[in-house]
């Protein structure tokens, strides 16, 4: 186990370097002038350009720039924006908001997805099963911004149940609707995976044994059946947390949440390449760690899996 963990952690190093370089190179190759519009209509004076170019090493080759960026990064320095604001500052103010939204979305999709999956898996071809199949297809087919705007209009504007946008305090109650919107497609996938998994294991020999032991149906399903059926669902949920944070851009935009999605969008538009890279680096790290956690959780859920 220890060896396995060490190997997996070592594997993170090349993946981390590869992904960050890719992002760096991508942002670096986007054409455009970082100083366009910075100094009003007339454009920036030459000496300002010269100072800024020297300060941010803009004339160096990408290799030199990337190397010095990584060197600073490992010292905990994400760099500063052209407006002299520390990028770590942007990340620490916006990241918790995105994380909060993503976790709310994850909880919602786990509850809805698992609940629907278990109920339909136990009773296939019933009314509920068909209802869930159709509505999950609906959720998968509809783009997030459609679901987002429609629900925002109904709940926030027409019925006035919620405020249409999320306040800066980010209360959990305010996040329920954005969380649902963000996790809607995933909850549909989870419902389907859980349904298949439950239906498959429903007829397993060990379930029959559990019934033959005279255990109450609650326990047969809730303990024996669920534990086995959860394995593929947990995998899906774990990898989804990373995807939710990356995918929050649209949801954050609709509901006015100050998250990293919004920041990264702004940074791309204003050519703040260091900010883009910084935020993506954090996303990559979270994604990699979540994947590792899922693999470890997998072994915890299924004792037959042993990592050497």
């Amino acid at each position, binding site marked *: 186990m220890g060896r396995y963990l060490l190997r997996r952690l070592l594997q993170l190093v090349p993946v981390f370097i590869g992904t960050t370089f890719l992002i760096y190179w991508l942002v670096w190759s986007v054409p455009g002038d970082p100083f366009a519009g910075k100094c009003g209509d007339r454009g920036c004076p030459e000496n300002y350009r010269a100072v800024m170019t020297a300060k941010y090493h803009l004339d160096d080759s990408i290799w030199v720039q990337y190397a010095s960026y990584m060197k600073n990064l490992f010292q905990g320095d994400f760099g500063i924006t052209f407006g002299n604001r520390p990028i770590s500052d942007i990340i620490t103010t916006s990241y918790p908001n995105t994380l909060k939204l993503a976790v709310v979305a994850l909880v919602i999709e786990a509850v809805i997805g698992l609940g629907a999956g278990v109920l339909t898996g136990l009773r296939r071809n019933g009314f509920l099963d068909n209802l869930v199949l159709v509505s999950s297809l609906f959720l998968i087919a509809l783009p997030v911004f459609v679901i987002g705007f429609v629900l925002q209009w109904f709940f926030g504007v027409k019925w006035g149940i919620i405020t249409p946008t999320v306040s800066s305090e980010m209360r959990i109650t305010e996040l329920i609707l954005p969380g649902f919107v963000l996790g809607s497609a995933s909850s549909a996938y989870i419902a389907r995976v859980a349904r298949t998994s439950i239906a498959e294991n429903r007829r397993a020999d060990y379930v029959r*044994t559990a019934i*033959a032991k*005279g*255990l*109450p149906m609650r326990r047969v399903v809730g303990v024996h059946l669920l534990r086995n059926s959860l394995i593929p669902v947990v995998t899906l949920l774990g990898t989804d947390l990373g995807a939710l944070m990356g995918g929050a851009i649209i949801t954050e935009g609709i509901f006015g949440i100050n998250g990293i999605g919004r920041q990264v969008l702004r940074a791309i538009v204003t050519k703040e390449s260091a900010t883009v890279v910084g935020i993506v680096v954090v996303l990559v790290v979270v994604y990699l760690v979540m994947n590792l956690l899922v693999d470890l959780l997998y072994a915890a*859920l299924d004792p*037959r899996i042993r990592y050497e």
Partner: protein
Amino acid sequence: MSDILVSEQSAPGADGSGRPSGRLLEVDDLRVEFRTRDGVAKVINGVTYHVDAGETLAVLGESGSGKSVTAQTIMGILDTPPGFVTGGQVRFHGKDMLKMSAEQRRRIRGEGIAMIFQDSLSALNPVFTVGFQIAEQFRIRRGMSRSDAKKRAIEMLDQVKIPNAKGRFSNYPHQFSGGMRQRAMIAMSLALDPEVLIADEPTTALDVTVQAQIMDLLGELQRERQMGMILITHDLGVVADVADRIAVMYAGRIVEEADVYDLYAKPAHPYTLGLLNSIPRLDEKGQELRTIKGLPPNLMNIPSGCPFNPRCPMAQPVCREKLPPLLQIRSGRASACHFAEELVNRD
């Protein structure tokens, strides 16, 4: 072993035929069919047998003869759909279980009637320790604390002669050998002191040497606890040592029922005779193995008359027309063959 449970209600098996017979477990004219897309398979067509406290009934038959489905119906673990009970009764202490509520039936499982399955690897839950799966019954059914339940589970593992029971408690099923796993399965089924134990081919998945050990263990535990045991098997060798009575099944019917000794000495049904003849014998080494020609019938289209007639070496025209009922031919012996008397009275 202080806790031998002798039920108050199970009177010694009186050999009468009156309805409230005081038998421990009776299957009476049970009928089960499987409704599938391809048609209706009549899997059980009027099975009647019984088992009393302290005796072992072996149910013998080829695969597809309905012996396991009968057991599943007794336990209430028949997959419905496709399986449907279409007639008959399953009486436990005289009460028809098929008419009981789901909750009443659940309470009988494990405590009244318990079951051992064939393939212990798939029958045990792979993600829980063996100890957990045994202790669970003490916790859920007896309301014991975690530590008491663990103590009792280790005792059970000890009783089925698993070495180092304490250490094995926290092992997972895949960490056990096949024989040890079947022992754990037995421990699990006996945890709540059942009055009847159904063992569905308990040794089929095991090595021959291990088979004998498991059968010995089962026989020993059955005698100690004075349980009624239904041993489902297709292995005639297994039956001889352990069983008191044998019921032979064919195409969802009992075709012969007899004491072990009588059945082996003088089978009263040509199918039983064929089964006995197909046991390989050392003194016939080098000769071709004797088999029963033909295949078991298609249960969606069972032959008219006696279902065995297409394969029967003794078949007469009457066999194709009339279904022979299971009739008593001697005390404690019954056969469903038109020529049972001739068979028994041979040479």
